[in-house]
Each structure stands twice: as structure tokens, then as C-alpha cells.
């Protein structure tokens, strides 16, 4: 897994590529989110469109990132869920927790 960071209209977008799984360094997301918060940016989007695979540890990583950001007074939203990620979130009722979007401009605009 690797993560690219960019900023759009004051929102930090983390583009995640590859697998978010146990043993694939899934903690990288949490670390990158912490780094973003420490830099003073509290509005964060995780772009999951290029995630090739995720397991329960990866879902846990998304949850952990969400609670970290929320506890710091920020907001974390998801962009471009794959079908499988959406099913894994839905079946564990996490679609009621996360805000998620199919369109980047709408996702960015939702923070203002």
C-alpha cells in the first residue's frame, strides 16, 4: 500500500493505492492521518478508488482513522468506495457512521 497526499480547497485528500490488509502495513493510513492532523489540517478525505483489496483489519483501520480525526474536532470522509468495501461497511453498519461520496468535488464541497 502507498498513499499520496494532496490538498483541494483546504481539504486534504489521501489517495490510497493497493491493499489495506493485515500484514500489508495497514497502520500506514492511521499514521498518515495523524501526520495530517499534526500539520493542522482537520478536514480529510480518504480516496479508496484505487484500493485493490481490504480485509477486516483494513476496515478497522478506516474506523480508527475516523475516531482519531473526530476526537481532534475534525471530519474524515470517504471517496470512491469499491463495491466490496461498501458491502463490508454496510454489513457492519458502518455506512451509518461514515459519510461517503462517488464524486470528488461533492466530497470536497461537503466540508464547507
Amino acid at each position, binding site marked *: 500500500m502507498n498513499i499520496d497526499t494532496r490538498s483541494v480547497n483546504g481539504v486534504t485528500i489521501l489517495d490510497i493505492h493497493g491493499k489495506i490488509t493485515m500484514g500489508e502495513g495497514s497502520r500506514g493510513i492511521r499514521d498518515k492521518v495523524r501526520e495530517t492532523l499534526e500539520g493542522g489540517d482537520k478536514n480529510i478525505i480518504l480516496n479508496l478508488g484505487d484500493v485493490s483489496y481490504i*480485509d477486516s483489519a483494513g476496515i478497522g483501520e478506516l474506523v480508527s482513522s475516523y475516531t482519531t480525526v473526530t476526537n481532534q474536532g475534525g471530519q474524515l470522509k470517504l471517496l470512491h468506495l469499491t463495491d466490496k468495501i461498501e458491502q463490508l461497511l454496510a454489513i457492519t453498519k458502518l455506512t451509518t457512521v461514515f459519510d461517503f461520496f462517488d464524486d470528488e468535488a461533492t466530497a470536497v464541497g461537503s466540508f464547507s
Partner: protein
Amino acid sequence: MNDEVREDNQSQTGELEISFGSHLGYLDLIQELSEKISLMAGFDEDSRFWIGLSLRESVVNAVQHGNKLDEKKKVGIRFESLSDRLIIYVQDEGEGFEETDVPDALDPENLLKPSGRGIFYVRSFMDEVCYKILPEGGCEMRMEKRLNQEKQGDGNEH
């Protein structure tokens, strides 16, 4: 694999058993094996994905919670491919657990916990899941996915 090809060449039956030291580094390899075996058994892409995920989650459970990451302790996997279903057994050398002790992943108190969803996913995506403590020691999870001929592919897709 001790296999037997059906006359219609729709799916392949047989058994395969592997055993390995408790290490999470084998997960991708095991998942590839699951993909191949479920393809040979005739499952469509969606089902193969969920079977692979379920196996992955049960192996993580066996390595982490059963064998407590002790590489000297083995995890065993047995695939039994029948004409109408695939049965997978995952065995560890742990003390086992009570199903009632597994926290409910859907309980509002647990929704935002970072872990505790693996076994829930296995139960959700496989048709039957059960556990037993083995008389010789260790714990075995048995999971079964039935092949729905109307919905599944011909086992030859790529």
C-alpha cells in the same frame, strides 16, 4: 490434489491439505490458493472473493488468537471440494473460544472499535460456520459455501 473431474467439466472435486507455522506472511499465498480452488470448484468471481476473505479472516484468527503468533505452532487448512459445495477447515493449536464470547460487531458499543469484525464477516459470507475443540487439542473452524449452479459460472472464467 486428489481430484476427480466431473464429466460435464463444470467443477472439480477433491481434497487439499496444507500446514504452516503461525505467520501472517502466508496470507496472500493462502488467498491465492483459495481463489484457485474455488475457481476449480465452479464458484463465480463474487463468491470466490468472499470465500477468500473468509479464509483469510479465519487464518488471521487462528494465527493471532489461537496460536498467539507462536511460529512453532501450526495452522492447518483443509479444502474439501464436493460437487455442490466447498468446505474449508482451519485448525490451530489454541485453546479455542466460546462463540458467545465473541463480541457482537453490530452492537452500537462495538461499532467504532478497530477490531472484532473478522469472524462476523466469515459468518456473513459463508453459508455455514461452526467451531469445535479437538480431542487431541486445538480448535477447528469449519466453514461451508454451497455452489448455486444457477448463479455460478462455469469455473473456467479468468
